[in-house]
């Protein structure tokens, strides 16, 4: 096969549209750290300042921080990935971590070096400002926005404009608590009901003119207590998007609970007040906002696009498609609405990627993506979009060389695991490693190829807070400690049937599963499903019926599943199985130990 294509320019020339950075913030941060170390800045004020600039505390130490780099709408450019790679080698652990909210995190950074990271980020237009603390956090957008076959229009420019409007905006510097926006493409690919403000693009036709707008959901969110969001109104026209956002923020700012940190996210306010009352308040407030702006306030929407297929003169004589391609194609790629293109998702282990891989990825994006950039996704992963269909085999072979061609990215075999005891002060278990263990095992068993399991998900948090999003997983886990006499072991509370699509619901508690029994328990659930499934049934649908008690086979409820699992979860004695009493990633006996969390600082 010989393909000689002369195509358009290399996508090198595509540069970030927005510069999110301010170099002077790096200098200011360095000075403030010095003052803090000299005792001229009190502990609390410094913590607030640090968090507002995107540096989070680290497990059991005040010497290190985690820097959370914001990627609004998940967009990241090759030169930015190269810079993050360099910074991770210089100031972190030589790996970066992609979060569930489209951020990239650098862990175990010495507090005194944080300003150097800010400096490096500013060189490539990135910031970590307001990535933590009581501010508007990274504005998310579906990684498929702009390419999804089911979307009404691309919401990316709206997500970027929203991020731009609120970043460093005085009204969002001291909110009662953090505040999150999620834009999506369609019901299927976003998480609009599990966030403070969730938005799905909609079109309305009036007088023969198509009008853009959004379906807006308010007051949802995952956490120690999770709530599903409520739809504000049938249709919110695009010109009302900013007014609505401002109105909601103003209400939260005014009425949010500033005292009780454990329950002051907006979802509690909505819950306490009742939806009808809250909804009314938002609509009234919006009218006031609209009427009282002294100057015209609107979002700057830049929807210019830059799709150019990179020049490739590929002589493919002698090129043979590497093994594993078909499996990867099935589990890692999605056809775009632009028929000649695919979007490709990379399978990472719980979001971790090495410095070397980041550099390889940057080069691959330049070489293959017609939009010349990538997007982080909702599942600790990365999507490279606008890959020409003809280039897929070649891309696969390049990914293989970089160690980034593992299959299963879009299946249940890519579990989410929050950082857990690898770095988080609140964690009770090593959820991060558990996610990796499950993935390794399930890929070895080729479960990613099982179509019945494809749309299910496994999500793991290391504590009852929901950074690992366990509440919306088909099979979700959150960590805690179990006890036999004086001995402790790592344990997880398992919930079933959570989902974040059009039928969003929180998982139903099933039973406690010791860490070292999680894998056999999941396999047992799959086995039960296979025994009782209907033809064309998926695990997700089967569990959905079970948790809603609409299943008519022998297994009718979560309780029935629990009874079958019970024998698997009985702790052995320490003499019989000492490994049971230590968590993944360590051989010492398990005990719980936590420090102060900063989610609510």
């Amino acid at each position, binding site marked *: 096969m010989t393909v000689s294509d002369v195509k358009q320019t290399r996508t090198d020339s595509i540069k970030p549209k927005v510069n999110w950075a301010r170099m002077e913030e790096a200098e200011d941060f*360095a000075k403030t*750290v*010095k003052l803090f*170390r000299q005792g001229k800045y009190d502990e609390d004020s410094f913590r607030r300042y640090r968090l507002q600039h995107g540096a989070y505390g*680290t*497990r*059991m*130490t005040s010497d290190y921080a985690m820097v959370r780099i914001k990627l609004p709408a998940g967009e990241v450019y090759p030169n930015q990935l190269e810079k993050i790679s*360099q910074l991770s*080698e*210089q*100031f*972190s*652990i*030589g*790996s970066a*971590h992609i979060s569930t909210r489209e951020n990239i995190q650098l*862990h*175990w950074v*010495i507090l*005194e*070096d944080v*300003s*150097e990271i800010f400096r490096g980020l500013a060189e490539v237009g990135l910031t970590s400002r307001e990535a933590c603390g009581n501010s508007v956090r990274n504005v998310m957008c579906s990684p498929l926005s702009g390419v999804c076959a089911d979307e009404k229009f691309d919401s990316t420019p709206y997500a970027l404009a929203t991020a731009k409007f609120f970043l460093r905006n005085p009204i969002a510097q001291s909110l009662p608590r953090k505040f999150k926006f999620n834009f999506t493409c369609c019901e299927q690919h976003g998480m609009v009901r599990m966030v403070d403000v969730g938005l799905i693009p909609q079109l309305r036709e009036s007088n023969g003119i198509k009008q853009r707008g959004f379906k807006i959901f308010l007051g949802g969110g995952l956490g120690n207590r999770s709530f599903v969001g409520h739809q504000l109104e049938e249709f919110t026209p695009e010109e009302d998007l900013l007014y609505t956002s401002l109105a909601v923020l103003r209400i939260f700012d005014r009425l949010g609970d500033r005292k009780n940190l454990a329950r002051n996210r907006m979802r509690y306010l909505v819950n306490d007040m009742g939806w009808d009352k809250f909804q009314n308040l938002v609509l009234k407030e919006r009218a006031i906002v609209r009427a009282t702006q002294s100057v015209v306030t609107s979002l700057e929407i830049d929807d210019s696009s830059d799709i150019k297929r990179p020049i490739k003169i590929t002589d493919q004589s002698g090129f043979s498609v590497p093994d594993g391609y078909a499996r990867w194609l099935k589990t890692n790629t999605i056809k775009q609405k632009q028929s000649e293109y695919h979007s490709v998702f990379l399978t*990472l*282990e719980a979001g*971790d*990627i*090495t410095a070397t*891989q980041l550099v390889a990825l940057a080069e691959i994006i330049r070489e293959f993506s017609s939009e010349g950039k990538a997007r982080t996704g909702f599942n600790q992963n990365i999507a490279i979009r606008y890959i020409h269909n003809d280039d897929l085999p070649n891309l696969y072979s390049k990914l293989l060389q970089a160690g980034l061609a593992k299959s299963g990215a879009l299946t249940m075999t890519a579990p989410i695991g929050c*950082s*857990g*005891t*690898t*770095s988080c002060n609140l964690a009770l278990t*090593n959820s*991060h*490693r558990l996610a*990796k263990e499950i993935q390794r095992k399930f890929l070895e068993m080729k479960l990613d190829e099982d179509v019945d399991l494809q749309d299910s998900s496994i999500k793991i948090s290391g504590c009852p807070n929901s950074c690992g999003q366990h509440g919306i997983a088909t099979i979700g886990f959150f960590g805690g400690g179990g006890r036999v006499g004086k001995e402790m072991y790592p344990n997880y509370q398992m919930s079933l049937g959570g989902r974040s699509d059009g039928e969003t619901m929180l998982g139903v508690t099933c039973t406690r599963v010791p860490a070292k029994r999680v894998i056999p328990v999941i396999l047992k659930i799959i086995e039960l499903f296979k025994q009782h499934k209907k033809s064309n049934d998926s695990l997700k649908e089967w569990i959905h019926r079970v948790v809603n008690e609409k299943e008519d086979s022998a297994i009718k409820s979560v309780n029935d599943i629990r009874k079958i699992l019970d024998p698997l979860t009985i702790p052995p004695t320490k003499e019989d199985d000492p490994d049971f009493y230590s*968590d*993944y*990633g*360590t051989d010492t006996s398990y005990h719980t*130990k936590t420090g102060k969390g900063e989610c609510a600082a």
Partner: protein
Amino acid sequence: MCRLSREKTIKTTTDIDSLRSEIRDKSVRVIDVRREEDYKQNHIPSSVNLPLANLLSDDSPERVQKLFQSLGIDDETPVVVYDDTFGALASRVAWTLEYIGHSDVSLLETTYSKWKSLGLEHETKTPEIQTKTHSLNLNPEILATSDYLEQSKEKPNTLLIDNRERLNYLEQHIPGAVNLPYRTLASSDKILRPKDDMKRLLENRGVTNNAEIITYCGSVGTLSGLAYYALKSVGLPNVKLYVRSFKEWKNLKKPTQKQEDASYWDLSAE
């Protein structure tokens, strides 16, 4: 004159253009510390080969004195060292030369790969070398031993710097050491950051002029050798290399410290 010679002692790197003109003037001895087979393929014109492994096989002062003499180096010969390992191997050789009393030695500001990628001249022939005589005036103030480290424990102004990667440091380090991974020292195209950059980085870390600084790394003092030169490059007057580094420290069963209660290794994608 006095000022000039002072400046000379803190010259740590030689830039590409200066080296090229020194080579043309035949006023420099260039040492290539890569492996012999790499050197034989091609190297910077007039350079001589001293693979680091050769030096390390016996780095007693008497032996390295002979080694450098055989490379045509006397007390006055200006020497520039280069490698293809971000300057770490070159640093170890340069430091050794300094240790036996040679004052005019510096590192090429970049690596051999970079040199070649710039299209600069290189050759395959090996120069003829006339053995010279070098004196032996040991420079103990740039060397730290494990005993010296033990004694320095209580000194308030001594700063111990571990130049290994962060995860290795978290896992185990010499008590009291701070971590400055070797990757931090370079810029994207040079083996050492620009002076102002390096100064700022060290100032942020509270490294001051009056501190005695000791660097160490994993085994033979290469990464920490680079750090030695990084610190010298900003004019810090009192820097020592613990040349036997953590490998010896562990073999001697000396105490170590660890970052407890966190499974940081599991965050690595390696």
